[in-house]
């Protein structure tokens, strides 16, 4: 049978199954192949909070979504065009994300009464017409895999474990992906167990052949290469981008990188990855708790290291007192907050932007701090690099905000060459002549970085209020006010280096959508769409949240309406309204999930229609 190949601009596919089903590897392979085929990409994995919940349970479902395209894209996709489910629980959890008429590839083997019950199905959805809105392809992948490998003398368990590659083979046929990179991957991965390599290869091939040969599938799809900026690319998650940014900042500043951390989802992965780069002189310490981890970083910063501490919301609470010390003694430090859904333990494996106000204001007294946020996985590299640069230039702690969606999401990154990175000049104070620990640089108001070990600069610092210039303890009323204002002014000074704000869309008009952090992709896509529809809608995405860009106020005033979409109940919104007195409104979602483009589009439409 000759099959039709249709061309599509972009496709979102999601692989979902039990924790033991290998969905993460499957998704990663699909991603890799698509990257090598020249598509633009966005990916996002989704894990359960339980480590390995009972097989077949709803709690045990894990998934990986790939959005690949022949044009530039900014998100890992929202509604899926295709969904691969390995069992009833996966169907139950993920069906809601499949668009009407979407392709549903189902592994029928697991649709047995026990599993159906565990997934909360009263009847078998494959048989009760409840899936009639979709193009359902029911295939017993497990059985077909067993058969494909049966003469290899593997145990049943080992045989069946190859079924994810069967599913991948089907997906490869469906979207006309090249097999070669995955064939190579399997050969490498199982180089010590050739029989397993063979089994997985057969499963992959069998899946592909099944689609090619059976009548079930009438057409396949092609997504041509995208026109990306020429250059060398790699796929990168927000986490890896952050880690590389830390190392790059260390190399470019000539400082040794120190990380004090305590494991917490979704930040732990930074600790894991960074700890592998000791050959860059990187020191990572897993401390006894968050307080110790930030204190260790402060100790290292005091000693002249480029110090980081990584955590998520609950850890930021615990670090606040020590961050306040760093503000008071004016030492450089980057606090990375990889946000997750709160309050309290909340939903630790779900995303949120709930910590903006806490990092801005969550310390006692007047303790101003710089705050920057990454906006897409690859942007985490540039943002953390800039955080480090500001920290050492202004001698101040800086907060790097990211979130679970950014940290785990991935996209192609045209990586820079080290020579092109902005310099991070650091000069430790060494001259004892006229040294005063709190004498400030006129341009930045930074105090000198005078590290222990430097002869002649012996001095004392501490958390009590310090006398201007000398740094001696002072309870003088006017001095305290001066120091409070100087610390605030120093942070405000950072604004002098913020580049002009980029506006996507017209410079003035009906509506400006202002975002920060991981909402970038959804807002960008939605606002572009609206402009394509001829609407006067622009987009500003803030990297610098404190201080805000100096030109922001004048931009805001040029628009009729201002909309601030956030994955919280309106935090940047409060900041902008207080600062600029603009009647901005929020679009707020707190579901542990990113925005869907359509949600933002709908809000834009309603504002433009003049609805309240």
């Amino acid at each position: 049978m000759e099959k039709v190949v249709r061309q599509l601009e972009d496709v979102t596919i999601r692989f979902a199954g039990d924790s033991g089903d290998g969905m993460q590897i499957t998704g990663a392979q699909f991603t890799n192949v698509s990257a090598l085929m020249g598509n633009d990409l966005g990916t996002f994995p989704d894990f359960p909070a339980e480590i390995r919940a009972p097989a077949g349970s709803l709690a045990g479902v894990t998934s990986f979504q790939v959005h690949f395209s022949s044009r530039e894209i900014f998100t890992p996709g929202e509604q899926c065009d295709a969904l691969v489910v390995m069992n009833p629980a996966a169907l139950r959890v993920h069906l809601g994300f499949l668009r009407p008429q979407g392709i549903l590839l189902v592994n029928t083997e697991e649709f047995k009464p026990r599993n159906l019950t565990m997934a909360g199905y009263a009847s078998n959805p494959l048989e009760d017409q409840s899936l009639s809105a979709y193009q359902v392809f029911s295939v017993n992948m497990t059985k077909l895999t067993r058969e494909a490998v049966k003469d290899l003398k593997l145990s049943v368990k080992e045989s069946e474990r190859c079924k994810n590659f069967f599913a991948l083979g089907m997906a490869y046929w469906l979207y006309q992906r090249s097999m070669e990179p995955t064939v190579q991957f399997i050969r490498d991965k199982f180089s010590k167990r050739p029989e397993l390599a063979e089994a997985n290869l057969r499963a992959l091939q069998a899946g592909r052949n099944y689609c090619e040969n059976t009548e079930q599938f009438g057409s396949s799809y092609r997504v041509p290469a995208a026109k990306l900026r020429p250059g060398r690319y790699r796929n990168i998650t927000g986490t890896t981008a952050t880690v590389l940014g830390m190392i790059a900042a260390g190399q470019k500043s000539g400082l040794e990188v120190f990380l004090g951390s305590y494991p917490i989802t979704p930040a732990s992965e930074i600790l894991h990855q960074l700890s592998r780069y000791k050959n860059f002189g990187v020191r990572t310490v897993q401390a006894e708790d968050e307080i110790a981890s930030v204190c260790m970083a402060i100790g290292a910063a005091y000693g002249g290291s480029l110090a980081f501490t990584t955590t998520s919301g609950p850890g930021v609470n615990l670090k606040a007192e020590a961050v306040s010390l760093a503000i008071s003694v004016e030492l450089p430090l980057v606090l990375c907050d990889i946000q997750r859904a709160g309050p309290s333990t909340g939903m630790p494996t779900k995303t949120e932007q709930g910590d903006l106000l806490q990092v801005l204001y969550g310390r006692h007294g007047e303790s101003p701090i710089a705050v920057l946020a990454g906006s897409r996985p690859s942007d985490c590299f540039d943002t953390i690099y800039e955080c480090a640069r500001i920290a050492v230039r202004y001698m101040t702690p800086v907060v790097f905000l990211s979130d679970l969606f950014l940290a785990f999401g991935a996209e192609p990154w045209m990586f820079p060459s080290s020579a092109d990175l902005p310099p991070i000049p650091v000069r430790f104070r060494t001259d004892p002549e006229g040294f005063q620990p709190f004498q400030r640089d006129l341009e930045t108001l930074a105090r000198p970085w005078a590290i222990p070990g430097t002869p002649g600069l012996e001095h004392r610092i501490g958390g009590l209020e310090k006398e201007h210039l000398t740094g001696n303890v002072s309870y003088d009323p006017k001095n305290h006010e001066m120091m409070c204002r100087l610390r605030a002014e120093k942070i405000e000074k950072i604004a002098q280096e913020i580049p002009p704000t980029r506006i996507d869309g017209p410079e003035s008009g009906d509506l400006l959508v202002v975002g920060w952090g991981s909402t970038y992709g959804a807002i960008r896509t939605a606002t572009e769409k609206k402009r394509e529809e001829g609407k006067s809608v622009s987009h500003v995405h803030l990297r610098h949240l404190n201080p805000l860009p100096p030109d922001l106020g004048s931009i805001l005033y040029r628009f009729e309406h201002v909309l601030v979409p956030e994955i919280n109940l309106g935090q940047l919104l409060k900041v902008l309204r207080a600062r600029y007195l603009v009647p901005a409104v929020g679009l707020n979602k707190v579901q542990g999930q990113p925005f869907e483009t359509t949600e933002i589009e709908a809000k834009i439409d309603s504002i433009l229609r003049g609805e309240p």
Partner: protein
Amino acid sequence: MNQAAAPEIASRPLTKKDFESDQDVRWCPGCGDYAILSQVQKVLPELGIPREKLVFISGIGCSSRFPYYMNTYGFHTIHGRAPAIASGLRASRPDLSVWVITGDGDALSIGGNHFIHLLRRNLDVRILLFNNRIYGLTKGQYSPTSELGKVTASTPMGSIDYPFNPISLALGAEATFVARTLDRDLAHLHETLRRAAAHRGTAFVEIYQNCNIFNDGAFEVFTEKETKLAHVARLEHGKPILYGPKNEKGIRLKGFQLESIDLSKAEARMEDLLVYDAHCPDATLAMIVSRMTGENNLPLPIGVFRSVSRPCYDDSLNEQVRKAKEMMGPGDLDELFNSGDTWVVQPSS
């Protein structure tokens, strides 16, 4: 920076004066902290460590004002966290000599966790704990070392918290060097500080310190002329534990109990006495001896309870960095960027 370096010898011999800062010392007149400050300033010149390589890190409390008075590098941090800040500094700066100054509240109440973790990690740091069995700076609440029944600002009917024995706690937390000394016994204080300085690893020194405002006389029997000899026994490695005005009493082990014997009595024999071993790999002996508190007819032991060697966290960390560089070569940023699967998008022609 950041290379391991043997502490250099300063160019001219330093004196106590070199270690005095220009700040007025602001403890209450009569406070035991003065004596400790003075002994530290006297010991340092003997160590041959240049002033700029010395760092004093403290938490919050009367005792924690200490760094301001030292003409070295100093960092008066936040309550209870000095051990963690010191750990970060020492882990990244093996060339520095790092000293933690803390109080019984600072180290054992709010800072208890960092304290025990520093001990187990054994970073090369000295901890001087000024134990006055009271919160001085906040005006006289009881502390984790205050005795049961103590009436203080926060315990008008008497404390009901069973106290820590800091020596026992440290031993249970895998400490490699543990000692006790007294603010009033200058020679012993001096000698103990010297030993602590000589230890490679975390050296914990508990210093009984009189707070003459809120807990005056807490250690009187151990420091006053009339009573001290009868109540204090000096631990010396390889020697029996003796005490008494004429060293006429000694400590003997009976099962797992310690008992005091009077050597002037007929049946008592010197050979029965417990010979102290501070270098015993096992902390058991130190633990038994730590249970003597100067009560129940047994003396208070002072001196070095334990001094054993074990790899330091900081050394191991630096060793891993060295090894990684050796194995993988010093990192190259461009190589790092360009790792994993990469692909090229060609300019469209």
